[in-house]
């Protein structure tokens, strides 16, 4: 189970690094420096597509990571519950009265 997680993590890191990040660098830039407001924006359809693809990619990575963490939470909660019920660990309950 642990090795699977490591594999998924490595794949994710490779996917992130392999992104065509540098296509984004060309986005922006009107060269006026003194008299007008400079607002970065895609110059053409290729750049705006690159931007949306990159965003989509980021959210995909985030959702995969969230999914992994949800699985991990379920696992640690289950383990904690088992330990808690078997040992009757009353320290985890705080008496408020």
């Amino acid at each position: 189970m642990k090795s699977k997680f490591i594999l998924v993590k490595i794949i994710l890191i490779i996917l992130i690094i392999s992104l065509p990040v540098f296509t984004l660098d060309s986005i922006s830039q009107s060269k006026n420096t003194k008299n007008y407001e400079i607002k970065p924006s895609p110059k053409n359809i290729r750049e705006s597509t690159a931007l949306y693809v990159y965003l989509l990619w980021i959210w995909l990575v985030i959702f995969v990571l969230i999914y992994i963490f949800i699985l991990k939470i379920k696992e640690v909660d289950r383990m904690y519950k088992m330990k808690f019920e078997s040992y009757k660990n009353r320290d985890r309950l705080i008496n408020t009265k």
Partner: protein
Amino acid sequence: MRKFKDWFYERTGFDDFINFLKKKNVPRHMYTFWYYWGGAILVLFFIQIITGIMLLLYYKPTVEAAHKSVVKIMNEVPLGWIIRSIHRWSAYLMIAFVFVHLFSTLILKAYRKPREITWITGCLLFIITLAFGFTGYLLPWDEVSLAATKVGTDIPRTIPIIGIWITKLLRGGEDVTEETLTRFFAFHVCVLPLLIFAIIGIHLILVQKHGMSIPISIEKKKNTIPHIPFYPNFLYREIIFWLLIVGIVITLAFLFPASLGKEADLMAPTPKGVKPEWYFLFLFQTLKLFPSKILSIPGDTFAVLLILIAGIIFFFLPFLDKKPAGKSGKLITYFVYLLIIYMIVMTIWGYVS
């Protein structure tokens, strides 16, 4: 790997820290969601540090070069425009989250005994966060930021006796000049980070010491409240929240990148309709509501003094609301809701007017 781990733990005692986190408990109830906001603010603060250092490599804090260096960051530096946009949006979200954290603490009465100093350090962090925003706003040295700084640094002048001194201290003279830019830069990258690190340290130690505050309604309902270990159960949940925040910051930075106005001209007249950043708008709009004179006191002096008194009451609230932790204190809750509504209405009004 295991050998390295053992070597590292033996020398640093890091395993003691992990064991401490495993023993630390977090109450689990319907308001647990509000426990995530402090950690989220820390994540945004770290994004600020990383992007801030990246910007610092290219930024030049002089009147001649400040605007040009920001233009260079946006036009020539690889991915510079994204870094600047992320810096700005994470700052906005950090300030918004500080407001949420503050109000949730107020509504859940988490400031009461024994957490008075935690509250005070939290208030100091709130002020420092706003100061970060205020000083950082001038650094691009564009027309709007110069005008907003002129207005902002002029407000303390209305305070009797010490007001003029505060304005001079902020500006480094009578007017906003290169001295002001140098001072704001020094505050933004040196003084405020040192202060915030020290106070965050105290705040975190106090949070560890007293644990998470349990809301009154939950305490009343149950004799015993279930807890989960901070590490890993709560931390994994926090990481999910952090991932969402990182996603939101990047999305906002891409879709609404930070723009840059015309280069500031010290000799040019102040443009009309200058407004401060959104988090100061409610104060700005409040100041505009006051007439020119109230009881022979200038209206703006009256308003600033009133805001200052409100701030002092807010700061020392745990010493004024001394009810035992179990008492609800509904009056304060209603007042906080009213304050939130007032701030939202004033911000919208200030934005559209």
